[in-house]
């Protein structure tokens, strides 16, 4: 597997060399079936010699399906305990690291709109998968997922109706362009790039679980550098900084919801 990951890095500059091995192996096993390859070295041949292959392989290696307001209590905690502090800043910058197809960024934008903060906020939403970023930019989701999204939104303390923020078009829900205008979707790798802006809140959910500890440390170190003093970091509900080299750089803020604050 190491050879394949080195080859991908050399040829395409995507760095999976420090991803958590167990999940990566499962995903590569699925890719072997998809590409009808018997071994990883056969897949390596294909990836290097057929340029149609890598974008599809990238989907196997990176794509996460999320929901609007996934884990409603996380958003409720942000709404009740983080936004009141953020509201004291004249302008706000948020970073959704590993935004996949945009659900988390739109959820934050909707919440900020409901709390009257969206017009002074800029959301950076980054990912390494350009196809995911394109989908995120379009902000179009299957209409049949909206029932769950609406339920989540209500549990997250949503003030209005979620339908105020999208319109139905055929079998799709198209997110309100006013939300999209406040979000900058951009290509950025937590494995190879560095910080690009000072931000007040970073939301990085269910991304670090796919990294090994060294890469987690790199990413969390970058978050620490990017955050303003006393800025906020939100992780996935089963992620923690407990095993991180940067644990002492943050203090628990809402431990139940995995929201941390940059230490003094």
């Amino acid at each position, binding site marked *: 597997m190491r050879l394949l990951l080195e080859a991908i890095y050399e040829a395409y500059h995507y760095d999976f060399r420090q991803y*958590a*091995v*167990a*999940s990566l*192996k*499962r*995903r590569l096993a699925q890719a072997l079936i998809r590409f009808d390859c018997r071994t990883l070295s056969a897949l390596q041949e294909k990836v290097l010699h057929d340029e149609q292959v890598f974008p599809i392989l990238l989907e196997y290696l990176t794509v*996460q*399906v999320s929901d609007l307001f996934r884990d409603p209590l996380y958003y409720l905690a942000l709404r009740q305990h983080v936004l009141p502090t953020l509201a004291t800043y004249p302008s706000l910058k948020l970073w959704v690291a590993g935004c996949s197809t945009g659900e988390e960024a739109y959820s934050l934008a909707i919440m900020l709109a409901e709390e009257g903060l969206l017009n002074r906020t800029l959301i950076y939403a980054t990912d390494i998968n350009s196809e995911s970023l394109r989908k995120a930019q379009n902000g179009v989701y299957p209409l049949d997922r909206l029932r769950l999204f609406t339920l989540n939104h209500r549990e997250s303390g949503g003030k209005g109706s979620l339908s105020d923020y999208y319109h139905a078009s055929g079998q799709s829900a198209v997110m309100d362009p006013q939300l999209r205008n406040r979000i900058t979707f951009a290509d950025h790798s937590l494995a190879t790039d560095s910080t690009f802006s000072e931000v007040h809140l970073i939301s990085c959910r*269910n991304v*670090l*679980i*796919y990294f090994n*500890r060294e890469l*987690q440390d790199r990413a969390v170190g970058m978050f620490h550098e990017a955050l303003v003093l006393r800025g906020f970091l939100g992780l*996935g509900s*089963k*992620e*923690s900084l*407990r*095993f991180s080299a940067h644990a002492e750089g943050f203090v628990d803020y809402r431990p139940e919801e995995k929201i941390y604050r940059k230490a003094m």
Partner: protein
Amino acid sequence: MALDATYVGDRPIDVILIGGSAGVLEVLRVILAGLPHALKIPVVIVVHVPERSPALLPQVLQPATPLPLKFAEDKEPLAGGTIYVAPAGYHLLLETNRCFALSIDPPVLFSRPAIDVLFESAADAYAGRIMAMLLTGASADGARGLASIHAAGGVTVVQAPQTAEAATMPAAAIALFDPDFVLSPPDIAALGASLSPYPRSAAWTRRTRNDPN
């Protein structure tokens, strides 16, 4: 690592894995109650639970055993004598450095956590030094994973289908390969109770195998 090895008969194991679904809580209580209180190796449990269900498993299972019992966390090193449970909504995997990893990859056979995901990652990370148990359940999840542990040289235990509230899961495993043990819950508990820090003769393992009682 060898210092903390535990033996099933003459076979050394570093971890016990348990998977089950419908009707499994009662069986788990019986098995956990039978484990030696001085157990030196970790136990990892995957039970199918709905994604949005309240996180009650540790509370439900802890009364059955004096060993500490908790949800597994991402990157957490496995500690001997501790029982870990997979959290709802995540797959639980074992890494070669003997830490847990979580993932939100799609459900396998409609389940997340899936037993196959734990078992297959363990077969890879722990080679054959595993004892894995597949219990009652109404899906085929776990059968393939148990077969991979068998192929890696691990000890495989399947609940006898006629003793299972839902026989699909154990029957699926038995259809795939010939497990080391096919036992009723009390006999699985007795097997767990017999775990020893010292190897016993291979004859002991053979005698216990597929005990009809």
